[in-house]
């Protein structure tokens, strides 16, 4: 199986939508690459793929294109490369399963240090396929600070516990905002991610501040870690990527299971 040439596979997940999973996944992938790693980014959100816009890669003709695509040195696959952005993918679960398995197993990913998988929100078909078809190295849970997001993040944690995927830790996104006068505003409250990590007994991986440039960069297809590598937020992502690499080393001794 092709996936054997991939050293680690990290799922970026959350219970809730809109917490910035794709933004974290894209910038984390780029930050890992800045450490000298060979990195791929797989968009597992079949219904609402965000990777094509965030990396500025348009739809291609699947008949004449060899996947994975390449952008900023990242190897990429997304449903958004296959369908028109104005078109909706209206599928039941088994089709999601089928396409995800093809993305994972039929695409020549080659030798990789890390594959980052951007999961859709929730605990449904895409999550089940990934935890069954692969032996994930670990999951990173993204949350925003407020309780309504934490409730769903707990469900994500519980899912990974049940399917025995190691949780590398929790990232608190949109954690705070530093205004031009240097004053710190905690727009969506603060510290929820840290509390959740403590309650669940998993590492807290860090806080990512709010920066309007993140949205601007995402919409322009040039992620902030790539466009402004010296910005505080890019540095937060580099720190995050290092922490995740360390956590992976701790959990990487998962032994092979016997077969019959």
């Amino acid at each position, binding site marked *: 199986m092709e996936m054997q040439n991939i050293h680690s596979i990290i799922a970026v997940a959350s219970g809730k939508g809109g917490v910035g999973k794709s933004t974290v996944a894209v910038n984390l992938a780029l930050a890992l690459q800045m450490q000298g790693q060979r990195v791929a980014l797989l968009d597992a959100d079949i219904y609402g793929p965000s990777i094509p816009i965030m990396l500025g890669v348009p739809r291609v003709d699947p008949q004449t294109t060899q996947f994975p695509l390449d952008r900023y040195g990242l190897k990429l696959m997304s449903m958004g490369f296959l369908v028109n952005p104005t078109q909706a993918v209206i599928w039941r679960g088994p089709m999601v399963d089928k396409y995800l398995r093809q993305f994972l197993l039929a695409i020549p990913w080659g030798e990789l240090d890390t594959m980052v998988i951007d999961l859709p929100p929730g605990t449904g078909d895409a999550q089940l396929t990934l935890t069954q078809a692969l032996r994930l190295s670990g999951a990173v849970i993204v949350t925003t600070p407020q309780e309504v997001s934490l409730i769903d993040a707990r469900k994500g944690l519980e899912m990974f516990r049940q399917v025995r995927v190691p949780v590398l830790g929790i990232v608190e996104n949109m954690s705070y905002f530093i205004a031009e006068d240097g004053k710190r505003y905690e727009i969506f409250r603060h510290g929820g991610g840290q509390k959740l990590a403590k309650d669940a007994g998993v590492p807290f991986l860090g806080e990512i501040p709010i920066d309007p440039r993140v949205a601007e960069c995402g919409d322009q297809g040039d992620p902030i870690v790539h466009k402004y590598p010296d910005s505080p937020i890019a540095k937060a992502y580099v720190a995050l990527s290092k922490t995740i690499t360390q956590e992976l080393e701790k959990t990487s001794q998962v032994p092979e299971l016997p*077969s019959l």
Partner: protein
Amino acid sequence: MSPSSSESLVPAALSKEGTDRLILQWKDGHRSVYTWKHLRDQCPCAGCREERLQPPDPFRILKPNELVPLAPVSMTPVGHYAYKITWSDGHDTGIYTFETLRELCQCAECVQKGKRMEKSS
């Protein structure tokens, strides 16, 4: 030993004993024994579960694949947490989590324990 959801509940080795039994050696030292028939009868897939809930149909006609003796073709890991058994009749939708496998154990110790629990409840 009681079934637990602890991290030690991980299979270390699988082997066949004769044609009708599976031996599963666990990391925590427990040695489970199963007949393949028991595992198939308790198949956790949605279809089989539904079938077990229905009252038995006295007029049921066997399908052609039910006439051949049932045997396991393979037993392979699913992610980090379960096994899939593929049977000689093509059935392969059952995903047996480690917890389920431990609960289904038919070793003398577990069977005794099961009986005791039945009496006390």
